[in-house]
């Protein structure tokens, strides 16, 4: 699915206001049992930009992120109300095929979680699962995915080694490559750097800025500087609600809501 806006885009000259709405939440509510975790969420996430979700711990950032590929379905006590549209299609319709949906949405988790397999098998997992390729075709997907995650040069001679032998930052890039392998158009990242050292973090952040050329990237982060460095759009969440959403520079320099301002200036946490 190609996007006309950012194919050869120059990120600096790019205005998020021009991008398409890729993921749209409309009156979306979510409960875990009796715990009302997401309240009347209305937000439009644009294609080919990095959108950051910020907010204090427990405010529902991860839950909101996981609503985009319906990963919350796994939790038995989870109930939802309202709609989420991807490219205009409501993914909470009863006849939605969640497995197809999750193929088009890649996910990267907080803790690097490669499978206990070789680097190659980690990346080949999705393509094999969905019978996308085999033999040389599969080799090519593995290479392209690893290149996409800027890891190819570091691991090309050790593809058959166990992924656990890699450093934390490399493992996280394996996970990113794994997410890229099935050709998604949206990439969700839930605090992907919080388990990494500063140098690995810089690499992943650079990668995020690159990824948005091809993908829509949604990022959960606790790190204000990170949100400022990599995202074009920022949503500030507080106890299940989106308090403020706008261009990152606006949210940081000119917050409209007192809660946002307090958070950004570090007055609560």
């Amino acid at each position, binding site marked *: 699915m190609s996007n006309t806006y950012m194919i050869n885009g120059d990120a600096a000259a790019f205005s998020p206001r021009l991008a398409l709405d890729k993921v749209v939440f409309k009156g979306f509510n979510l409960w875990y049992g009796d715990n009302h975790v997401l309240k009347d969420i209305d937000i439009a996430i644009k294609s080919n930009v990095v959108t950051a979700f910020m907010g204090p711990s427990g405010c529902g950032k991860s839950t909101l992120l996981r609503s985009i*590929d319906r*990963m919350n379905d*796994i939790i*038995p006590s989870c109930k939802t109300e309202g709609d989420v549209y991807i490219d205009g299609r409501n993914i909470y319709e009863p006849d939605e095929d969640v*497995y*197809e*949906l*999750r*193929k088009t*949405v*890649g*996910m990267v*988790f907080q*803790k690097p*979680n*490669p*499978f*206990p*397999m070789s680097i190659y098998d980690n990346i080949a*997992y*999705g393509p094999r*699962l*969905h019978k996308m390729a085999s033999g040389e075709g599969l080799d090519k997907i593995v290479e392209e995915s690893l290149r996409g995650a800027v890891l190819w040069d570091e691991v090309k001679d050790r593809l058959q080694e*166990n992924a*656990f*032998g890699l450093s934390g930052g490399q493992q996280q890039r394996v*996970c990113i490559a*794994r*997410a890229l392998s*099935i050709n998604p158009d949206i990439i969700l990242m839930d605090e992907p750097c919080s388990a990494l050292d500063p140098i690995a973090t810089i690499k992943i952040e650079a990668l995020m800025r690159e990824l948005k050329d091809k993908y829509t990237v949604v990022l959960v982060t606790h790190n204000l500087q990170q949100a400022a460095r990599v995202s074009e759009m920022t949503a500030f969440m507080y106890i299940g609600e989106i308090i403020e959403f706008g261009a990152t520079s606006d949210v940081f320099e000119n917050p409209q809501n007192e809660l946002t301002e307090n958070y950004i200036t570090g007055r609560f946490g």
Partner: protein
Amino acid sequence: MKEAQKEKAVRGLLYVTVGLSIVILPIIVVWVIANGVGAISLGFLTGRPYRFEYGGIFPQIMGSIYLVSLCTLFGAPLGIASAIYLSEYASDNVVTRTVRFFTETLAGMPSIVIGLFGLEFLVYYLKLKTSLLAGAISLSFMMLPWTIRASEEAINVVPKEYREASLAMGATKWQTILRVVLPAAIPGIMTGVLLGMGKAIGETAVVWLTAGSGLEAFVPRTLKSPTGSLPMYIYLIATQGHTAEGLQNAFGASLVLLVMFLAMSVSALFIRNHYLRRLGS
């Protein structure tokens, strides 16, 4: 001063008890080796028993191997499938809690009771006769709870992060179990199965009632053949043998049984350690 002396006495006592419990098993092993090694010869290992306590134990060795293999063939897949169901599919309700309660209490159920059930139900009612098949099925009843427990444990320690990663790639639950959970759990499952096999190979009461008289002169040819086994042989010769040679043969058979048992335990241990290293933890 008095309290200090008491403390010393308690320590001393603990040292003695710990020492005893540590040395008792090696002592038994050494004792079996010392008494049994004289019986071991090619003729003993490849011959068949005659005139009760003379001759070799080849049919008994093969009988034990057949019984345990067949028992594993029945017990392991059933146990693993039950564990998958219990840990991955069953919700926590009265039924699953009951099943779990039974598997936990039935592990270690007096084996004579299982033997009696095998005798009445398999041997008489289903007319399997005292045979390889009846013995193996009865042994698998004994092995089942252990396999279920070990497999469930092995499946439960597979980090949920792997499952999430797989599901997020668009895999179904079953695909995730097959491609991620089971491969990661298989060493743990195998450890459990091998330990269960170790229990089965040493089991006497069950094979006594369901498999055969113990001194069979032939390796079983069909599933319905009566099947001798090492524990039964040892029991009979040790309690009813008359000569020094008979007693030595009982020790020789014990030594063989011990070696087979240790082979299983050591493989279980090896797999467990190897697996932990591979998981990187």
